[in-house]
């Protein structure tokens, strides 16, 4: 089933027209050829796609980042890594399926890969809690990261979450503390860490696995301190202001890159990663292996200092 976002509707309408024309021709009651018209519409579709997707607003990118067909963490793990072996549980309370992790290899080197996981349908979304982890997810992630640190495996995290889960159990088991501990402990891990925002980078829930030596982002992913919806509700008291909030918060890949908040953008095909998963995976694989090679060539203390300095540098203020 094809999923059409609001701003993709002009394309969908042209495609519908094209289908009608084609079927009309195929029904063949008239021996008239529509080849010329078909070619014309096909060109119009290409042009419209080009225009729409090369001028995406921040809010449209947020919608693409949430596209129900968008590849999720396990899709990329399958495409990018070899021999992924999932490991379960935080050894304290439960196994949070909104956070996955395990051993994998890339370029014949072993790594620990960890990421937030959304569900593709209702049933899987219940299992995955729509990609919003509980404290157990962050504690599982930290358990696996500490194990990676102990045995010298580089860590790759894939971020795709609307945010940590706002629920009663999450509060009772101290979701804030689970995230905070990760922020502190990730700073002291001796192994290389690479984080990639592949879809939604939802606030503290994203940062909870995002304290890395390098932070990359897919072209249509976003990373924000608050959801555009949350921001619009608080500041403008209106859901009409969501596009404006999305723009003001500077959350798209290119805006984050120009503010130096992310290190590199991984390109996506026109229309979004869902249109060519393996092309995105190929770029991602290259970025991961290059980055891990570069980070691996640094001495431990240099790498840790660079990680500290990376985050230390964030913030603008005046002193006078």
């Amino acid at each position: 089933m094809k999923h059409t976002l609001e701003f993709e509707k002009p394309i969908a309408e042209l495609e519908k027209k094209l289908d009608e024309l084609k079927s009309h021709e195929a029904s063949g009651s008239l021996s008239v050829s529509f080849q010329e018209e078909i070619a014309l519409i096909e060109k119009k579709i290409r042009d419209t796609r080009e225009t729409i997707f090369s001028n995406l607003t921040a809010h449209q990118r947020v919608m693409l980042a949430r596209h129900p067909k968008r590849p999720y963490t396990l899709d990329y793990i399958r495409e990018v890594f070899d021999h992924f072996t999932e490991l379960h549980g935080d050894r304290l309370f439960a196994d949070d399926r909104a956070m996955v992790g395990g051993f994998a290899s890339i370029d014949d080197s072993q790594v620990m890969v960890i990421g937030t996981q959304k569900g593709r349908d209702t049933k899987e979304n219940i299992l995955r809690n729509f990609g919003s982890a509980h404290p157990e997810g962050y504690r599982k992630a930290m358990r696996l990261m500490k194990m990676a640190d102990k045995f010298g495996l580089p860590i790759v995290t894939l971020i795709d979450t609307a945010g940590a889960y706002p629920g009663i159990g999450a509060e009772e088991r101290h979701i804030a503390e689970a995230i905070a501990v990760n922020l502190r402990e990730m700073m002291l891990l001796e192994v290389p860490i690479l984080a990639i925002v592949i879809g939604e980078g939802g606030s503290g829930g994203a940062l909870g696995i995002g304290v890395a030596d390098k932070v990359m982002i897919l072209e249509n992913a976003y990373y924000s301190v608050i959801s555009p919806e949350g921001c619009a509700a608080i500041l403008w008291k209106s859901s009409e202001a969501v596009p404006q909030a999305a723009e003001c918060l500077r959350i798209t890949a290119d805006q984050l890159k120009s503010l130096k908040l992310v290190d590199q953008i991984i390109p996506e095909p026109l229309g979004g990663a869902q249109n060519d998963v393996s092309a995105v995976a190929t770029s991602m694989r290259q970025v991961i292996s290059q980055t891990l090679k570069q980070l691996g060539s640094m001495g431990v203390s240099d790498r840790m200092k660079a990680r500290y300095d990376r985050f230390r540098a964030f913030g603008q203020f005046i002193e006078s």
Partner: protein
Amino acid sequence: MTEPVDPSESKLKTRALPGVETREPSITPPPSASDQTPLKRPKPVSGGPRKRLMPEGIWTKCPKCQETIYRKELEAKLNVCWQCGYHFPLTAWERVSSLIDGDSFVQADSEMSSVDVLSFPGYLSKLESNQQKTGMKDAVITGLGLLHGRKVALGVMDFGFNGGSMGSVVGEKLTRIIESATEQSLPVIICSTSGGARMYEGMFSLMQMAKTCGALAYHGREKLPFISVLTDPTMAGVMASFASVGDLILAEPAARIGFAGPRVIKDTTKAELPKGFQTAEFLRDHGLIDAIVPRKELKGRLAWYLDCLMASRDAAQA
């Protein structure tokens, strides 16, 4: 009536003057240089969220027990209602003077202030009105001072400044005072009160969470203690960063503490929230908080905790 008085006596007096508590507070502009001078408190001014909660004018009403209270007496009792124990909010400077010996506090980075890094609509005027209202440059005071004779690094947030939200200035000032503490082998105490990250600074605000926690990681690696004091309210991005990683986590009675706001949780889960949800007492019972400490005992307790946490260092230096 400038001297602290006996509670029972005051109760009689306040009852003898019914209706006086509604008198409008006098409006005093904050002294512009207030946070250059150690320990000088900005005078309370009216407006904003303080109007409801903060004692202003001559009389105020306790929101918990409805008692009419003489304001100067309330101040003398660290803004705690002596009838019911309700803890009124403290400004950052009131908190500093409640914890630090005499005039020993030396403020750090007193002139640091925020910039509108994202050109976010309304941010500059928001900053200006908060500076006017509080007499502070931003939502935290940091510095070094003596606590019962022991030198400590202290950070104190002020909810009155844009809900104590953390942007670049709050993150940078806290990080610097933590780094100073690491260099000088000092314990760190941070008294938090915040609605979370400051959305006007976008991702720069989120990054302050990692920055402050990173500084505490290196401070802790030197086996130096960090005590986090949670006051009403401490939520979201502040709770999900430095406020949650204390060697000790203390809280004031009845302080609201949590990650997500209660309304968001209700809307998301469609469930009834448990009784006392996201209060200091609830979180102590669920294992997060080492101790709930009434305000008047806080300084003494901090001194004792630091005596314990610094014992081997103190012995090595003796």
